[in-house]
């Protein structure tokens, strides 16, 4: 049996057929990846932690009646049985989209939503697919009519009367869905047990030799530059040079998403947000201390040079069960993803690939080990069924 230990004075990772030792720096990185902390608050949604809103949100999440033709629900693509993905290359609702369905298991921790970050809250995100003609094809007016017809009691419990303004109603529906999504999280994995034993016992043999080797490859290969923290994502946007075949126009990712989120009426600074925003008044400008609302949105640089073809770093939690991969679902297997990083073929059509990326040229054994390690991020206890099961 192979055991990983950390050595207080070790300066480098010692590789070998026997035990493995993590340096202090590597140990710090590994410890930063588990456990998953409680999610941050959702200041734009005053109902984010309200059980009545979460109960309503669950009903809405599974309700096909919110779609334009009654055929599609949020859960059609975000299938709880597939860790809230759909297993397809790209999303298919009322039409066929161009992007892969990301999991919502980590929605409560995210800052930006969609692959291009064009929403800045989970509730604002939820209102997007409902109205997208290629997804649910619904409307704010349709959602208002549906909640009156089918969700009156749950709605009244969560929010009181249904507002007259459909845009307000849709925003509240989104806030209920967010409250439901915040009850979902990736479950505990063998990696979490491994880290806990490292922390409490100074060593662990929970992972197989191949999985420990894969962890070493993960740490040595620069994967943590982006896949960092307990969700294995920096929640940022990077151009990694996924080969693109323009079809119906190039998908420029964050370069458009950053602008769209600034213009979104449902953003943090918008009138539907529950953040108290004081209108700017130059005559009261001051260095007065204290938090100001919506810092991520206010300081966002929509013209950042690296945004073209940049897409959000996906979580690696449960990644072994959420194929296919990449923003366009173009890679069917995790081994295929590793091969992309091994070769980094071609050059991006615009912008440039993240300069920290160099072809890994891993051996077959190393590549297999890396894939084996990624599978240790799969939750142990199956789906969080109490949250995700259909009503």
């Amino acid at each position: 049996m192979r055991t990983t230990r950390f050595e207080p004075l070790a300066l480098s990772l010692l590789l070998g057929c026997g035990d493995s030792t993590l340096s202090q720096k590597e140990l710090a990185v590994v410890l930063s990846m588990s456990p998953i902390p409680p999610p941050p608050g959702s200041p734009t949604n005053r109902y984010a932690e309200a059980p009545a809103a979460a109960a309503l949100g669950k009903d809405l999440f599974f309700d096909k009646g919110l779609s334009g033709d009654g055929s599609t629900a949020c859960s059609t693509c975000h299938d709880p049985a597939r860790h809230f993905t759909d297993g397809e290359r790209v999303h298919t609702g009322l039409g066929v989209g161009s992007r892969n369905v990301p999991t919502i298991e980590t929605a409560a921790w995210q800052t930006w939503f969609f692959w291009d970050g064009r929403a800045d809250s989970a509730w604002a995100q939820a209102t997007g697919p409902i109205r997208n003609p290629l997804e649910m094809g619904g409307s704010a007016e349709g959602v208002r009519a549906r909640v009156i017809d089918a969700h009156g009691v749950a709605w009244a419990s969560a929010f009181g009367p249904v507002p007259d303004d459909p845009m307000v109603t849709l925003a509240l529906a989104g806030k209920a869905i967010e409250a439901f999504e915040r009850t979902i999280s990736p479950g505990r994995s063998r990696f979490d047990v491994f880290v806990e034993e490292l922390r409490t016992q100074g060593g662990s043999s929970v992972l197989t030799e191949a999985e420990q080797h894969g962890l070493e490859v993960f740490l040595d290969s620069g994967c943590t530059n982006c896949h960092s923290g307990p969700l294995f994502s920096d929640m940022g946007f990077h151009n990694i040079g996924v080969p693109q075949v323009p079809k119906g126009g190039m998908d420029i990712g964050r370069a458009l998403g950053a602008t769209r989120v600034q213009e979104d009426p449902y953003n943090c600074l918008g009138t539907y947000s529950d953040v108290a925003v004081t209108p700017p008044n130059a005559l009261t400008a001051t260095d007065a201390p204290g938090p100001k609302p919506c810092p991520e949105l206010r300081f966002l640089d929509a013209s950042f040079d690296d945004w073209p073809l940049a897409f959000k770093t996906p979580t690696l939690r449960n990644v072994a069960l959420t194929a296919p991969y990449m923003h366009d679902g173009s890679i069917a297997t995790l081994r295929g993803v590793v091969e992309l990083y091994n070769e980094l073929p071609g050059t991006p059509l615009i912008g440039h690939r993240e300069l920290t990326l160099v072809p890994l040229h891993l051996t077959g054994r190393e590549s297999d080990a890396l894939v084996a390690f990624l599978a240790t991020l799969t939750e142990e206890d199956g789906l969080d069924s109490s949250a995700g099961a259909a009503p």
Partner: protein
Amino acid sequence: MGDRYRLTWSTDVSPIPFNALFAVRTVLRDRSGAPIPDGSVVVDASMPQHGHGMPTRPIARPGVCSPKLEPGAAASSTLDCTHPDGVYVSEGMKFHMAGEWVLHFVVSGPLGPDTADAHYTL
């Protein structure tokens, strides 16, 4: 920095956090050490090895401001701002990747323009 000013800087969170917003507090003085309240300090940062800067656009706090007094005018829409003790604050900094960062300070003030760089490893 050139020989016009003395500049010291600190952050509101120490050490600088990974992938989270923080603010830079700069103190600007002349060569004798006297604070300069009527200048400006613009702060930016980049990763030379990565060829990019930050995904945010920092904003300098205006300082302590009051309506500008204009002879004959009942009210003013412009401000007079000052930075007591030579303290300038830029908010909205974010180091979104680990590695070598360089903070860039662009100073203007009564002694003329100047620039300075400071290196930081995250």
